[in-house]
């Protein structure tokens, strides 16, 4: 395959947008997907991710902007002239053709006569060599999914588009296919653009994830970066769970911002604050539930210095095997979520117990306080 740094293989969207009457499905958007990467568009249904994908495929005409593939402007090309193939949601396998003919469809349309060898190799790649003469409805969901991938990949597209390809599979099969798709992508080196609403799926598979909301890209980055440094409450809530405390900027010292929340003080590294932090201004302080330690109030003295701390009372706890999830009521934030690993469980940590929550300030992130702290909570559910 081509050199991964070759810029001619990039997918470049420039100012692309889509409106239906008064409704804007995709706001003007610039996006570059480097050649050979596994790129995920993540968002809830109706966020514009599928529309974006369809504009790349040519199935939807952009209202404005251009799509270029490897330096060539393909905006005006119909889908059947674009070097792009799609794995459709629910697969769209041709029911009147058998598996072999489904896979051979693209080759035949391009006038290639001897397709047998290629099709057989491709079916072997997806481990369906035995099933060549069956009709799609005779295959299981997972097998149909692999046919859909084979049918698209056999054309050696510059980009493979996957529209919720795993949505119809059950959880176990989905995990298996995630690894399978990742393997295939590494093997063939083709750019994959994957649309999904499943944040775990996006994080497991993709090198780069773009989180979309209401027709806009909220944030883009590697999965770890998005998770650790969310820049909006939507991203913070849509990817995993976050706790938010509204705090006031007290002072800045070196690399750190000191905040006032309730009676106590919290420390936030300036690098991890995406909001303008002027003294006296408000900031939303966020922290992930698994970063927090829980100590009974009687042992508060044992907590090392330099950690952010909050006091509260356990409202609820649920045991889920690897961890225990606590809901803590505190003066600065009701329903504070804490996930504690089940090692050395303190038997005193039961609902009603007074506790101290504490964490390493390096895990704190700061967001603009003007946004809704609950954005993205429902979408993630």
């Amino acid at each position, binding site marked *: 395959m081509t050199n991964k740094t070759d810029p001619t293989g990039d997918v470049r969207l420039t100012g692309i947008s889509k409106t239906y009457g008064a409704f804007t499905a995709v706001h003007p958007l610039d996006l570059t997907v480097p050649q050979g990467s596994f790129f995920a568009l993540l968002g809830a249904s109706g966020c514009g991710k599928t529309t974006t994908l369809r504009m790349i495929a*040519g*199935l939807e005409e952009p209202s404005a902007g251009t799509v270029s593939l490897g330096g060539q402007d393909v905006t005006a090309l119909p889908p*059947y002239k674009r070097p792009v193939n799609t794995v459709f949601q*629910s697969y*769209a396998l041709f029911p009147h053709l058998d598996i072999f003919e489904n896979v051979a*469809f693209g080759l035949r349309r391009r006038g290639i006569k001897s397709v047998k060898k290629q099709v057989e190799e491709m079916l072997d790649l997806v481990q369906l060599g035995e099933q060549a003469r069956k009709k799609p409805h005779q295959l299981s969901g997972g097998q149909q999914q692999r046919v859909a991938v084979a049918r698209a990949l056999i054309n050696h597209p510059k980009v493979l588009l996957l529209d919720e390809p795993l949505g119809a599979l059950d959880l176990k099969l989905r995990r298996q296919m995630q690894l399978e798709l990742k393997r295939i992508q590494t093997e063939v080196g083709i750019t994959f653009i994957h649309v999904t609403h499943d944040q775990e799926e996006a994080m497991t598979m993709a090198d780069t994830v773009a989180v979309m909301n209401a027709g806009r890209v909220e944030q883009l980055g590697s999965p770890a970066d998005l998770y650790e440094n969310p820049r909006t409450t939507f991203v913070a809530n849509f990817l995993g769970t976050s706790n938010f405390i509204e705090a006031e900027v007290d002072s800045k010292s070196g690399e750190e911002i000191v905040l006032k929340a309730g009676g106590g003080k919290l420390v936030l590294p300036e690098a991890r604050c995406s909001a303008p932090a002027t003294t006296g201004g408000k900031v939303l302080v966020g922290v992930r539930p698994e970063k927090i330690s829980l100590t009974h109030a009687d042992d508060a003295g044992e907590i090392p210095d330099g950690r952010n701390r909050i006091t509260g009372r356990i409202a609820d706890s649920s045991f889920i095997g690897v961890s225990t999830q606590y809901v803590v009521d505190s003066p600065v934030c009701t329903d504070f979520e804490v996930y504690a690993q089940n090692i050395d469980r303190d038997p005193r940590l039961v609902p009603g117990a007074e506790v101290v929550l504490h964490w390493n300030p390096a895990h704190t992130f700061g967001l603009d306080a003007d946004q809704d702290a609950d954005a993205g909570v429902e979408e993630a559910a």
Partner: protein
Amino acid sequence: MPFVNWLKRNLVVIAGLLTLAYLLLPNVIVTVFSFNKPKGRFNYEWQRFSLDAWKDPCGVSDLCGSLSVSLQIAFWATLGATLLGTLIAFALVRYRFRARGAVNSLIFLPMAMPEVVMAASLLTLFLNMGAQLGFWTILIAHIMFCLSFVVTAVKARVMSMDPKLEEAARDLYAGPFQTFVRVTLPIAAPGIAAGAMLAFALSFDDFIITNFNAGSTVTFPMFVWGSAQRGTPVQINVIGTAMFVVAVLFVLASMAVGNRRNRHKA
């Protein structure tokens, strides 16, 4: 009382089978009386067994001629109605356009109109235009009333078709024409075939509209109607029986082929 319980549980089955018997009784009579040797001109009373009519099905003047007229009209009417109806069905399912409601009503009304009303009004038109009644006026009328049924059959099929399939074809390098021929048409084919078969049956068996607009042309149903006044030849029963048998065999054979293919592929 096990018997009463059994009866209670299977009451619906018994009632259903009785209805089926009611539906099939006339066909049994038609078949049995195709072996009759009637005394007078009418074939309503059983006399004695005879193969005469089967040996000479065209032995009555004009009978096979009328059959041929009916088959020709049915063929062309099926072709015309299927073509026009399929186009309309695709337009209705695939496109947004003004006057959709009006088009839908225009399709629905011929099916909701008693035949005699359509027959009489069409005759009024032909008389006013001074058209020569005969083969062509029958054909025009048949295409008209078969059209709506074809639209309904094809529409149902096209509507249940996943539009993503056509997108997939376009995505896989098939242009608009290739997409239509390779994907759309094969998938819509069962609906089109069902519509065509319905059109053929409706046209071949139509009497009321034909009777009004036929002039001196005689179709098979009109021949049967005439013979009910003049005298019913046994050959009518022969043809009725033969059509029934051929149709049932055709359906059974196509089902057997379908079954075998499925089992083979499984």
